[in-house]
């Protein structure tokens, strides 16, 4: 009897301990999954748990206004690196971003806290006026910025954006290889998230709305 109850006692203790451990493990897994449900890099967005603050850089926009760290503060910025002589990828991405802008503007009254920035990595051909004409076609509010190679490289490097100007026999007719991601910077000028191609306006808009809501929750 005694031995039996001891046996049962040990069994109960083992089962209880097991249940506690299993519960703790499940809670851990749940917590991890819960966090990852938010941070999970899905097909569209990779959201960084610890946004990286950008450091000083200086470019100029299509109206020759300075575009620097201060230009990012207080706004969510969507950045895309490209060049105006790009026939396929850039117009496709900018057309989608124009739809993203419309979608966010429709659902959020005002939407003054967002900006879209096309960073030309081809300053040799993309003058301020050329950039202005280009971005204006997609949306009047779009910014087109560029600078010298060192300054473009500075910003691109901070975001891990890569580009390379192809050397061809024709000096006015060369191609540029460039990162096709859309970078999302938050109102504190931090690298907050990245959208991976192919870009779809509806998918980007939906995720951005969640990101903005989450960020607002973290701030309070």
């Amino acid at each position, binding site marked *: 009897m005694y031995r039996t109850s001891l046996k049962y006692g040990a069994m109960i203790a083992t089962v209880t301990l097991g249940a506690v451990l299993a519960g703790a493990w499940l809670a851990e897994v749940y917590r991890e999954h819960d966090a990852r449900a938010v941070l999970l890099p899905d097909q569209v967005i990779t959201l960084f748990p610890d946004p990286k603050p950008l450091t000083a850089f200086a470019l100029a926009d299509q109206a020759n206004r300075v575009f620097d760290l201060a230009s990012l503060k207080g706004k969510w910025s969507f950045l895309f690196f490209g060049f105006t002589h790009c026939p*396929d*990828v850039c117009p496709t991405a900018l057309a989608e971003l124009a739809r993203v802008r419309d979608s966010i503007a429709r659902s959020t009254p005002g939407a003054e806290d967002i900006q879209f920035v096309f960073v030309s990595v081809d300053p040799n051909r993309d003058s301020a006026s050329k950039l202005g004409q280009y971005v204006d076609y997609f949306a009047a509010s779009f910014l087109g910025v560029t600078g010298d190679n060192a300054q473009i490289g500075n910003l691109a490097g901070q975001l891990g954006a*890569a580009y390379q100007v192809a050397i061809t026999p024709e000096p006015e007719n060369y191609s540029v*290889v460039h990162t096709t991601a859309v970078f999302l910077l938050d109102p504190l000028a931090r690298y907050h998230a990245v959208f991976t191609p192919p870009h779809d306006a509806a998918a980007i808009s939906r995720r951005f709305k969640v990101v903005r809501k989450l960020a607002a929750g973290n701030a309070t």
Partner: protein
Amino acid sequence: MSWRHPVFVLSLLAQSLVSAAGEEAGVSVRNAWIRESPPGNSMMAAYMELRNNTSRPRVLVAASSSGFQRVMIHRTVLKDGMAGMAHLSQIELAPNASLIFAPGGYHLMLMNPKRTLRAGDPVVINLEFRGGLVLPVAFEVRK
């Protein structure tokens, strides 16, 4: 646009040209379009669905258009998150198969348009196949 409108009549003519030549060649083209581009821009892209209805391969070797200085067969290549363009000297269409030219993939790169093209404008691009066949295709400019 009406019957009296020269562009309309031209576009109809182009379309009938396309279907006649296409049937003869065993190659058909659907959804042929050009992305409207910002004013003053020198590079555009054309997209389409090419179908080879024959039991033999067809090889697209070149494209040209009176509306552009030059037309090249290109493919956007994505590698390590970067996009680049590869110039193709030819594309083989497998027997009884389709090949889709779409944003982010195969496209005809259109260089230096001779006039500003707006959504709705028809543009004829000649597709040249190995063996000498030239297929005029009516593309529609779309926003």
